[in-house]
């Protein structure tokens, strides 16, 4: 399938606008990109997709000069190029529009479009000319606004149009859009797509990064799939279906998933009483209809593509970002957690996805990090009982085999795997009944990974309810007793362990954007 796609790509490539070949990029010796390639024709919309960490943004940053490259070649418009900075790339005809709009909100639309290359007359700024040109430019994209108003008065979509107009006014031949739709509503997305089609009609090429697969089919001509720093597949959009795309992104053939690749033992204990149930969750724009259930002694997997709302769902249950709608029951009681402290008091623990930002307190010792959540229980008259604290820390450091020079070592000096174990210990010493693990094995070495996986199973066997979010299919397929699949913010499948094959999970993911009515018919999805 991949070979055929590459051939097709070659057939159509008469004279490509951009050719990136065999790009290599290492960070501290670790390959972020290895033999990544990307070709874009003039006037084509190229989708660039891949999982978190696949190397999409690194590849784009190498192209625009935000990162240097360690190998490979870049030809743009027939000439080899090496842009030194995004500004240089912009002058050379490559403009980037980031997810977070990087314009000046307080200044007028005109100023934002002409920032850095204002028209002058007699040494003064020529406002009438710039305003007229800005208005004209935006009219090309069917945007009629007062360009003298500050940018911040307009909607995100309009601001994005202004960013695009600015990009185009640099005589861009290639516009890169990094997840431009993530903060737009459906109507605004439609406007953006019109603009992209207009750009294409004018011969401008677009690289479109998005996690919403349905969107790709609406506007893109071709798709490039990346995985683990490599380009895995290039194909005309119309010739791949969503299932093929997903399996290329996740790197799984539809039929085969290696068995016993993880530290999970398959045995599923009998499920106990319900510890969590959530229904009809709606959280911001990311989660529209989330449903979940976890019972004691069970590992429940929650999976979905990037941006499907997994982390948002977990944070809502834990009270970190309260949901806009829906009902949550913890330990059988209806709750409305508004602060993590509330959920913790009910016996919930949450290991976040981003250890550094949301997990460790870097300058504190391993001891303090482990006991942070249970500190109030170790206190008499406001004073921390350090004897008990040390005893607990010693017990859990031993049980989880946390490698540190001592419990007093600062946690930031530990390896990723040991940091993760310390964070697990933080929750285990709180003796929770429900533990939410968001990507518990991401970014840690293979040995620690297997250790953590078998520990999770052991804990479940002892009666702990575990909600495990993972984008690694093996982990979900082997480890989970029950699997919920999220797609575009909806729970689209609820599979028992026996039915939760890689094929079934990917099929469920491919039902992205399915109408709400279909979301409930999980049995059919499972066999799709």
């Amino acid at each position, binding site marked *: 399938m991949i070979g055929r796609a590459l051939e097709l790509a070659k057939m159509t490539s008469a004279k490509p606008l951009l050719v990136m070949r065999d790009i290599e990029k290492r960070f501290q010796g670790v390959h972020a990109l290895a033999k990544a390639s990307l070709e874009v024709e003039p006037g084509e919309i190229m989708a660039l997709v891949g999982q978190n960490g696949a190397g999409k943004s690194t590849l784009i940053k190498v192209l625009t000069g935000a990162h240097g490259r360690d190998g490979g070649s870049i030809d743009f418009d027939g000439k080899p190029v090496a842009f030194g900075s995004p500004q240089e790339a912009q002058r050379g005809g490559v403009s980037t529009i980031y997810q977070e709009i990087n314009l000046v909100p307080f200044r007028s639309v005109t100023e934002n479009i002409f920032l850095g290359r204002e028209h002058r007359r007699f040494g003064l700024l020529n406002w009438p000319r710039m305003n007229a040109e800005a208005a004209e430019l935006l009219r090309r994209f069917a945007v009629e606004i007062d360009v003298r108003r500050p940018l911040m008065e307009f909607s995100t979509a309009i601001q994005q149009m202004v960013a695009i107009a600015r990009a185009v006014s640099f005589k861009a031949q290639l516009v890169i859009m990094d997840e431009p739709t993530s903060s737009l509503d459906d109507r605004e997305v439609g406007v953006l797509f019109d603009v992209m089609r207009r750009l294409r009609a004018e011969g401008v090429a677009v690289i479109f990064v998005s996690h919403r697969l349905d969107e790709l089919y609406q506007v893109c001509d071709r798709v490039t799939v990346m995985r683990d720093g490599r380009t895995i597949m290039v194909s005309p959009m119309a010739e791949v279906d969503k299932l093929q795309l997903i399996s290329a992104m996740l790197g799984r053939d539809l039929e085969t998933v290696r068995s016993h690749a993880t530290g999970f033992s398959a045995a599923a204990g009998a499920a106990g009483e319900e510890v969590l149930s959530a229904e009809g969750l709606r959280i911001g724009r990311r989660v529209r209809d989330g449903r979940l259930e976890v019972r004691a002694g069970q590992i429940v997997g929650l999976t979905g593509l990037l941006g499907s709302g997994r982390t948002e769902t977990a944070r809502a249950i834990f009270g970190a970002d309260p949901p806009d709608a829906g009902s949550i029951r913890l330990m059988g009681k209806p709750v409305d957690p508004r602060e993590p402290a509330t959920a913790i008091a009910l016996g919930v623990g949450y290991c976040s996805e981003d250890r550094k930002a949301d997990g460790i307190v870097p300058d*504190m010792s391993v001891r303090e990090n482990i006991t942070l959540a249970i500190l109030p229980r170790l206190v008499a008259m406001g004073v921390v009982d350090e004897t008990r604290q040390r005893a607990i820390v010693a017990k859990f450091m031993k049980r989880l085999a946390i490698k540190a020079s001592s419990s007093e070592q600062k946690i930031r000096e530990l390896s990723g795997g040991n940091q993760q174990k310390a964070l697990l210990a933080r929750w285990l010493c709180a003796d929770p009944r429900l533990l939410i693990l968001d990507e518990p094995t991401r970014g840690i070495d293979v040995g620690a990974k297997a250790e953590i996986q078998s520990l999770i199973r052991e804990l479940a066997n002892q009666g702990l309810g575990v909600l495990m979010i993972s984008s690694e299919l093996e982990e979900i397929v082997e480890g989970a007793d029950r699997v919920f699949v999220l797609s575009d913010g909806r729970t689209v499948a609820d599979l028992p362990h026996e039915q939760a094959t890689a094929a079934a999970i990917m099929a469920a993911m491919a039902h992205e954007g399915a109408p709400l009515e279909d979301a409930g018919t999980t049995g059919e999805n499972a066999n799709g």
Partner: protein
Amino acid sequence: MADASVVNERRATSAALNFLRRYAALTALIVLLAFNFAVTPHFASFQTLNVNLTQVATIVIVSVGMTLVIATGGIDLSVGSLMAIAGALAPLIFLSPFGVAHPALGDALAFVVPVAAAGLLGGFNGWFITRFKVQPIVGTLVMFIAGRGIGQVVTNGNLQVFHNPAFQFIGLGRVFGVPFQVIVMLVLVALAAWAIRRTLFGRYILAVGGNERAARLAGVPVNRVKRWVYAISGLCAGIAGLVVVSINSSSDANLVGLGMELDAIAAVAVGGTPFTGGQASVVGSLIGALLIQLLRYTLLANGVPDAAALVVKGAIIAGAVWSQQRGKRA
């Protein structure tokens, strides 16, 4: 194994830098003391010690609260204004008809009410910052400006002159020859240092400053901790305000605590508490304040004008921040 030795080496250098960072101010203080014993005439006297300690006490008292605020990653610009409010309220109470009629009760209230008021206003700072997610520098700027206005309004802008030995004991009294305010200062430093090290509240302060998002997800009541920290900073400022008006035997809401916020911040900076939060050294702030004070005294005692001393003070702060940056990079 090469990796391990690299890590060890890096740990060793970072430990050395940490040592320097932690003890730079103390080393400088000792060097400066030695210099003075050798050069400055009449330096080795009880009187010199008392003069210096008396002058530094209010700065240290305020910087105790400031250290806690900075340890949460915040800052408190309002301390000088809160000193003025406390300093204005106290004479109003003991000079009032009620205070004159019941001197003991009046003096007691003249201690408690102004300090409590300053604490409440500090708590308001914290509420304002956490409720509206205002940056601390902006949130406390409001009280910095408004607070001095409040002080002037309650006194109608009048200078209050008084003579009240019982009340003024806080600024003029001595216990075994040691100025009472110095004892207050030492008690507050010891209490805060102990609280940071041993109490739940202290550990929460460092967790909030060290990683606010992680702390919240671990169940730390982040907003409550912040509100308390600003309230404590207000309490410290209130006590310092009483000390100042007692020493002066007068209260001028225009002048009490003027520029104190910057002196306290300077003491904290020189003392080695990083402004990014997550670490707190109250004893460091004490040493920082002593160093700045002694340097100024040294220059004055040796005939260097006060204006030039300010430049040196600036240089010390720059040096302290530089050594912190070095420490962070390691």
